[in-house]
């Protein structure tokens, strides 16, 4: 048992810290910590800075730009990135479609897409969920019918994050309506400019535009855009969802939030003193810090165990990280609301273009919207109920 990092690992952490904080613009990192929506340009800028150093896709195979890092290095990289408020490289590209193409795509598909995905030359979005198929994803109904050298796609995807920016969408589609649910699904890549595709924005309760509906009406897709084999899409999707073992805990991001809350609470007056000196507030925050430390230790145990595990095989322990990590993220947004008190109330769009100063302290602007928006983290990526089902089955054998 040794809980210290090696000298090389410590040096790597220091290097990562220096890189993230000196190379990625402060203006972007501040938005991340303050929960303000990033523009497309922010995301592209930050992503490309990482990619220029080969740090957008460390988990990819080396021949396609991966770093062959140890699980510990990968952890340190994510921890430092999140603590610095660096937006992660676009997950749809680097954690989802990229690894699937690298693992299951043919050479032509890899050459066509991987380098562009790594550099965010193509912006990808994820077309899995449908109105009738959320938790029960395998019930999806969007169809792709093979006609000659094309597939004809019909149906609807929904909750498609940032589809408004996307050049491409990777979709799960039904190619064999007669087969058992999971067995008739394929994984296909679709150019968002193809005729017959319509996007409709969905406004979320925080007022933002982050998700969309995407409709497919007789959309013609070249057959070569199929990834791997027809009707094997469900396996690829499972590979994709299990790919990110540990970053979903978002420990680094939550540490950054704790630090921020402490800073803001020292600026707010409560009674005779400062809020940061108020015992009730201190205890409430400290209780979250205990949970966060425990989660960090749990995450490190998963990271350490990953050395002995098969790469790409989902680890049910990641469900523990997802549940606890999302809980903590959500509770921290409530603490930010506690900090700003009555200034939670004003609704101020950060991008309304007005020159008026914010009502109250500027850090109050995102307090309620972040709380509202972060309800999503226990819903998407497999809801916390579904994660519990996984644990019950895979870990407890119930």
């Amino acid at each position, binding site marked *: 048992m040794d809980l210290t990092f090696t000298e090389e690992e410590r040096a790597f952490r220091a290097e990562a810290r220096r890189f993230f904080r000196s190379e990625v613009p402060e203006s972007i990192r501040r938005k991340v910590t303050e929960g303000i929506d990033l523009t497309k340009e922010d995301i592209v800028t930050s992503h490309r800075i990482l990619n220029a150093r080969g740090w957008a896709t460390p988990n990819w195979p080396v021949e396609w730009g991966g770093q062959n890092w140890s699980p510990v290095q990968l952890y340190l990289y994510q921890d430092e990135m999140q603590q610095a408020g660096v937006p992660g490289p676009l997950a749809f590209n680097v954690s989802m479609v990229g690894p699937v193409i690298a693992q299951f795509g043919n050479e032509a598909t890899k050459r066509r897409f991987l380098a562009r995905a790594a550099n965010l030359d193509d912006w990808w979005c994820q077309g899995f969920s449908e109105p009738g198929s959320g*938790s029960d994803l395998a*019930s999806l109904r969007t169809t792709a019918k093979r006609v000659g050298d094309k597939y004809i796609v019909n149906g609807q995807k929904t*909750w498609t994050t940032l589809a408004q920016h996307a050049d491409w969408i990777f979709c799960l589609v039904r190619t064999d309506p007669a087969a058992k649910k999971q067995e008739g699904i394929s994984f296909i890549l679709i150019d968002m400019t193809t005729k017959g595709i319509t996007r409709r924005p969905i406004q979320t309760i925080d007022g933002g535009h982050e998700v969309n509906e995407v409709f497919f009406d007789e959309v013609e897709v070249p057959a070569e855009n199929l990834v791997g084999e027809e009707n094997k899409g469900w396996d690829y999707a499972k590979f994709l969802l299990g790919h990110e073992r540990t970053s979903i805990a978002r420990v680094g991001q939550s540490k950054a939030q704790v630090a921020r809350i402490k800073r803001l609470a020292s600026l707010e*007056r409560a009674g005779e003193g400062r809020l940061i000196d108020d015992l009730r507030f201190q205890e409430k925050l400290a209780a979250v810090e205990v949970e966060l430390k425990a989660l960090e230790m749990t995450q490190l145990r998963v990271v350490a165990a990953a050395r002995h595990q098969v790469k790409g095989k989902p680890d049910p322990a990641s469900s523990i990280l997802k549940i606890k990590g999302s809980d903590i993220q959500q509770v921290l947004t409530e603490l930010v609301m506690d900090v700003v008190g*009555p200034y939670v*109330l004003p*609704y101020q769009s950060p991008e309304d273009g007005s020159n*008026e100063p914010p009502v109250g302290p500027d850090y109050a602007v995102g307090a309620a919207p972040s709380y*509202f928006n972060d309800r999503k983290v226990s819903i998407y990526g497999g809801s916390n*109920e579904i994660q519990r089902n996984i644990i019950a089955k895979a870990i407890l054998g119930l």
Partner: protein
Amino acid sequence: MDFDLSDDQRLLKDSVERLIADKYGFENRKKYMQQPDGWSREIWAQLAELGLLGLPFAEQYGGFGGGSVETMLVMEAFGHGLVLEPYVSTVVLGGGLIRGLGSAAQQAAILPAIAEGKRLLAFAHVERHSRYDLFDVVTTAKREGTGWTLNGAKSVVLHGDSADQFLVTARIAGGQRARDGIGLFLVDAKGAGVSRRGYPTQDGLRAAEVTLSGAAGEAVGDPGAALPGIEHAVDRTIAALCAEAVGVMASMQELTLDYLKTRKQFGRAIGEFQVLQHRAVDMLIAEEQARSMALFATVMADEINPVERTRAIAAAKVQIGRSGRHVGQECIQLHGGIGMTMEYKAGHYFKRMTMIDKLYGDADQHLTTLAKLGGLFGAAA
């Protein structure tokens, strides 16, 4: 022991509920929000016609002489409708302050105007660093001739952008957090030295920042000792907000239950999953606990002993805050993605619920208040 409503109260409840059902559907509400004031003058006129704008006032002032139970019934129905109009600001709190602190002449001048729908009030008390403490006041009032001159800045003045008059807390003596030396002043919203900047709040209602630079004010009550009266009016307002919150929670419970019965995943209604049944049950329990405490707050709102009243109101606000948080978060979670969208009603209830917790002290603040008063039940001898 009797929790039953009188015939008159049942009639009142029915008529308000009917109004909400007929006029306050989700689509209508969106339209009202688009009106210049951010709410509907037409609805306001109907509330006047139904006598609701004078509900708590004495008959001599054009009112109905209703008590806190009547206000509770109205507010619960308003919670179901997510009503946008300035009922709390003008009738419950504004009218309550005038009723509790105003002279006979002030009551005669203002209350009938409110009851007729011709006067809107807003209570201006929050300052940059006051948080929820009503006695934390920097804004000053200085005597000048027969009147007063006010200087200061007030924040998050609910419905302050459409108000005709502000009821402003200001200090005539004492340090920033002294309980003595606080007065309440009527200030004409369009008067010289008054400026305001309106904006929407997170729940779709309205508020304003108000700046007073040499504004003329008329004292309401004893200008050096208005705090106890202000606190009583605010306690009544908290009781009313608790009732509104119960309406909001009940709506979230209904919506969620409906959804569990109709949403199908894995070939069955998700309400068939026992784990979700238990979650719905816990929502119901939280809502019932809140309803009980809202009733407690209602009967204690007129209590004269300020310590007993404060205990009860603080306890109710704690319960409402905690239950509301639970019911709101579960409502969104059990809806999945759809709960996160503006197009669906659930999120709007969730947002209103979240904001109610932040009005006149959040659950944490009231818990501390209650704890410092020794809790609700006495110690063993």
